[in-house]
């Protein structure tokens, strides 16, 4: 199986330039076209171990990141993301090109993969037991996700849960973790070996960086997991570490609230989430200290 790191840089750049490079992330394949040097460099660093195909037959998504035409090509260059010719977003400054690619790929999945139930949450696993961490921005979800991913938990995804309504299994994506603002330094200190993009300031989400998924998560991207725990994290300055069980009735709405396409799936979505809620144990988790948090999750895994 070919991976990005098995190809020389000029081969990657050339395939990207011609739009013949296909990247596999879990169940999805994406054919990418770009002449953007930042995209070439960051793809090689952050997706080094991901399987790729050159000249593939069928790809799920055909995407492109390219410079906008007109004056913004030359003065304070901007780039735009295309999903098979359509532009879902407004162009962004060129330094954000890789972040734009990541957000664009999320959008491709969220807008069309209704074969699955999609939830906005981080998801990690121990063996095939998955923990889902749904939380609005600012609750420390990504930081916790990054910490867990490098400390004994297998990363499935940092913000998209891909749940198969037929089998109740979560499919991994094994894509980079998006960390923001203060989290960037926290993660860098906690996991000095992690491969990370240059922090990009002044995006819509503040300063952002992407962290490459651990190699184990990438090589296990075909291994699905079942939701065993639903943990609603809340980071709070100086807070003591507490893990409180939810009442069984709270788990189901917590899942629905974070589902993107619950309505689209109708009855199938209801069945899938009620089964997941029945089988999972829910917790409210408050923390300020990441080390202590990791200990709590270690206990959870053994429970």
């Amino acid at each position: 199986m070919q991976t990005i790191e098995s190809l020389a840089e000029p081969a990657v750049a050339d395939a990207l330039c011609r739009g013949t490079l296909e990247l596999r992330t879990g169940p999805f394949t994406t054919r990418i076209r770009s002449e953007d040097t930042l995209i070439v460099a960051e793809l090689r660093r952050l997706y080094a171990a991901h399987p790729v195909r050159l000249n593939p037959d069928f790809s799920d998504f055909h995407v492109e990141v390219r410079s906008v035409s007109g004056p913004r090509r030359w003065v304070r260059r901007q780039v735009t993301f295309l999903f098979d010719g359509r532009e879902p977003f407004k162009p962004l400054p060129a330094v954000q090109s890789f972040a734009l690619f990541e957000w664009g790929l999320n959008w491709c999945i969220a807008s069309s993969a209704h074969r699955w139930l999609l939830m906005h949450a981080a998801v990690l696993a121990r063996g095939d037991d998955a923990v889902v961490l749904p939380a609005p921005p600012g609750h420390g979800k990504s930081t916790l996700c990054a910490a867990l991913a490098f400390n004994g938990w297998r990363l499935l995804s940092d913000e998209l849960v891909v749940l198969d309504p037929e089998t109740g299994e979560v499919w991994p994506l094994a894509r980079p973790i998006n960390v923001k603002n203060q989290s960037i330094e926290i993660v860098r200190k906690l996991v000095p070996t992690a491969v990370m993009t240059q922090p990009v300031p002044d995006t819509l989400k503040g300063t952002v960086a992407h962290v490459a998924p651990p190699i184990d998560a990438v090589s296990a991207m075909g291994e699905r997991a079942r939701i065993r725990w639903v943990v609603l994290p809340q980071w709070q300055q100086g807070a003591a570490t507490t893990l409180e069980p939810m009442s069984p009735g709270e788990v189901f709405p917590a899942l629905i609230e974070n589902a993107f396409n619950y309505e689209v799936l109708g009855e199938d979505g209801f069945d899938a989430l009620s089964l997941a809620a029945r089988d999972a144990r829910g917790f409210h988790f408050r923390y300020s200290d990441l080390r202590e948090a990791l200990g709590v999750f270690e206990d959870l895994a053994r429970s």
Partner: protein
Amino acid sequence: MTPNISIGLAQLVRGELNALPRDLDGWDRLIRVARAANLLGSIAAECDRAGCLESVPEKPRVHLLGALRLARRQAVAVRWEAERIGEALAPIEERVVLLKGAAYVADGLDFAAGRMFSDVDILVPFERVRVVEDALMRFGWATTHLSSYDQRYYRQWMHEIPPMQHLERGTTVDVHHRILPRTARFDPDPASMLEHARPSRQWPGIWVLSREDMLLHSATHLYHEGETDNAFRDLLDIERLLGCFAEDPAFGASLFARARDLQLLTPLTVVLTMAEAVIGTKVPPEVARELNAQPPSRSLQRMLNTGWQPSHTLCEKPGSAVCRWLVYARAHLLRMPPHLLILHLFRKAWMRFTDADDMPRTENSR
């Protein structure tokens, strides 16, 4: 790329499933073009109807299933929305007359399975617009397009009031009082269309246009549409409306008689001629005779033949971009005489440039 990707697409939408791709390369192209043309759900519905969805290779099947789920969900949501509009209009004793996609579903036309649509369009008598707007506001809809120029532009010239959006659900209803802007070259009488409206065959209490008017509205809409994204899909709608209705042998004659009454003969002939050319529609002999009597000009045919292809790079022909621009410019000219159009475009550009809500107005520019 095979030159006939769009013909193949049309065959599949008709349910001619022997046109399904034979290898994954072919599936890759089909899924892409079908998605761009908003036809993925229709193709999925045809495969599902024929019971062959399971035999589609796993990778493309995922996309068909996704589109089918979305389309089915939309059909349920649109019915629910139409019924809520019905509740809002009940106190003022006004009927809900649905237009376009929602009307096809309400009328139980089988091709509407898998069709994607978003807004609900209704037609009400011009003199009832204010009352209808008030009634909708009482049930949670509010006007959009808040700039005073946009409001004035819609109300003075257009065939609909600014879209009304439901404050909780975010859904949109377009309230039409005509099917074309007041400034348009053709002037079909909306009162007559409302007079001929009939109860839909599937949704109790919801009305739709007569069969002739339904097809004429679809054709007129496409003929005047500047955005070409859905043109290919709209041609297929028209073909299949004709297919559903022409089971009645008298339909062809009554369609053209009605087109003459409503001054819509030109849009109808052009659109049906283009359906023959672009998607290979086979029209009944009596319709073909009418079409041959006054064919559209060669240059118009050439422009629409290219401009109305699915807007996807795999369907690009030389001159595609130019043709699409011409379709866009032509649509504007058909909808508004040049002097008004220039003024309108100038105002919009000015407002974009200055971020203003409106232009400074002089006494005589009201």
